[in-house]
């Protein structure tokens, strides 16, 4: 038995990545997730509209953090602002009545506002929009769609190149007359299609079985999903190209998956996170997909409302795919001579 213990320790010591995963990662996760794991929303950005906006803004309870006062706007414009995701709460201050409009697609924020107003201003009329009954499924399922896409896009795809390397077929690919981008696109196309089918099934099941509202355009969701898939597939390929074994690839893929689950706003509201932790969320693709899917499905948002997260996904996609392409090219095209600058490799036959 002792021989086994010693052997395992020796192997463990040489697998630096696994060692880091076992020691450093739990500590990092504890700190990051410890701060992130909070459902408590204490302040909600609020726009106050209507003829009595100025006066109402001064009297609102502490949970409503007034960020804009637009006396010229009416209730319909406030609704549009909520649909576009500009603010989660709008206070419509009329001459005789004050009404609070709350975005129901931001579940914990909406609940915090409802609870805060019930105790601080019980007479105020609160109207929850888009998800009137504050149904959890209506908010979670659009986000879970993203999680499924991450699973297929990153975790499954991450095994692709590693499998080629382990089987000795990667060097075979390198001598075939294929361009790096042919290999890359050829690798991801099947996963892209499977993920698209999965996406459709999950959305249909969500709508039919869980009665999740679908108020927006399916084409917008398709566009957001396509961009999001490009990023997740790119991450999968990148993980695959830097891993030496399937085990390493899975470990790395999970390391990209966990922060997305915890920090993307899927479970814990972004508003409840400290600024430093929230800044991590803004480099995670799932954060933008959750925003897009909830906006389209629950709020019925239009293209202009989701243009920013779409654009950011596109930028992330370009960065991640560029890195994956560079890594894949390194595998498929040998490095240039490094030590002797006069050396060269000549392609093509020469006559002796």
């Amino acid at each position, binding site marked *: 038995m002792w021989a086994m213990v010693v052997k395992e320790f020796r192997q463990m010591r040489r697998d630096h990545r696994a060692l880091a995963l076992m020691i450093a990662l739990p500590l990092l996760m504890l700190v990051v997730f410890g701060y992130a794991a909070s459902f408590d929303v204490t302040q909600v950005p609020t726009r106050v509209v209507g003829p009595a906006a100025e006066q109402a803004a001064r009297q609102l309870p502490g949970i409503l953090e007034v960020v804009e006062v637009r006396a010229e706007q009416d209730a319909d414009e406030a609704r549009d602002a909520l649909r576009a995701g500009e603010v989660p709460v709008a206070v419509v201050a009329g001459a005789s009545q004050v009404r609070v409009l709350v975005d129901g697609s931001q579940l914990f924020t909406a609940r915090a506002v409802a609870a805060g107003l019930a105790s601080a201003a019980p007479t105020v009329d609160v109207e929850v929009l888009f998800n009137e009954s504050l149904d959890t499924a209506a908010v979670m399922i659009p986000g879970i769609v993203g999680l499924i896409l991450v699973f297929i896009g990153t975790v499954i795809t991450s095994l692709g190149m590693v499998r080629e390397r382990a089987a000795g*077929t990667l060097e*075979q690919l390198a*001598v075939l*007359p294929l361009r790096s981008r042919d290999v890359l696109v050829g690798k991801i196309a099947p996963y892209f299609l499977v993920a698209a089918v999965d996406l459709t099934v999950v959305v249909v099941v969500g709508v039919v079985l869980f009665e999740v509202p679908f108020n927006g355009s399916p084409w917008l969701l398709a566009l957001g999903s396509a961009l999001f898939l490009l990023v997740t597939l790119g991450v999968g390929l990148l993980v695959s190209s830097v891993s030496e074994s399937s085990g390493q690839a899975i470990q790395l893929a999970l390391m990209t998956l966990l922060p997305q689950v915890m920090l993307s706003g899927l479970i814990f509201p972004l508003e409840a996170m400290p600024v430093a932790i929230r800044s991590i969320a803004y480099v995670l693709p799932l954060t933008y997909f959750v925003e897009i899917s909830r906006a389209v499905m629950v709020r019925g948002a239009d293209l202009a409302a989701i243009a920013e997260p779409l654009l950011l996904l596109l930028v992330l996609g370009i960065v991640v795919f560029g890195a994956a392409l560079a890594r894949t090219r390194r595998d498929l095209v040998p490095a240039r001579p490094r*030590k002797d600058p006069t*050396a060269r*490799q000549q392609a093509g*036959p020469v006559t*002796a």
Partner: protein
Amino acid sequence: MTFGLRGVTVQQGGTTLLHDIDLELSPGTLTAVIGGDGAGKTTLLRSLVGLVAPTSGQVHSTPPGCLGYAGAASGVYRDLTVEENLRFAAAAYRLPRDLIGQRIAELLEVTALAASRARRAAHLSGGMRQKLAFACATMHHPELLVLDEPTTGVDPNSRAELWRLVARTLADGTTAVFSSTYVDEAARADHVLVLDRGRTLTAGPPETIRGGVPGQVVRLDGVTSEAPSWRRGRIRHAWIAPGARRPAGAAPIEPDLEDAVIVAALAASATRHREEAP
């Protein structure tokens, strides 16, 4: 057109894997690169196909579209069937669509894999898998065919079949080079390069290497001798270096390629010892 290496040195991680190697592959010929484990055979072939960039020297190879390569790990997809592997190779080499079926049928026939066309590569024997790798590598009638240890772990019958396939490919005008740890296989080549620790031990046509043995090779037949000796079947052969005395009763023999390679290694070792001696 001639392919080959000129003065190629490959260094990786502070280790010299190949040192100033020259190799000329004449058109339509078969070249054997032989040597023990770690001699540099695979590095040499990988340099030739562009998988390893030389630290210095020149590689004269062919563009990927005219190159056929089967690596030591065979490089076939184990979860695809024989026919699916061939179809992938045909598509990757951009064979005209109307020729693919005919070429695959031809290769299945010559490799005797027709009956196994629907079997997954994972379920093939080692020899069948090597034949499949060979078929994939020759799908496009390459100008240069590079085979890394094609017969390692392959039974004698399958080895014979593989050599028959190689001979057929050479007859079509392809230039071929293979690596092996088996010296007897090198005897069928037109040109042999023997590597030892990344350096050229000896090179040339097999008959030239045999004829160039310094001193004598003798058969010991029970005779005791201080001369370096090695077992060949049930008898021992020994090398009598130039100037050394042949033991009484030891009969001189005509060295075969294996004897010649062993003598070359012994001579190189003796030279190294002389150079290292204070």
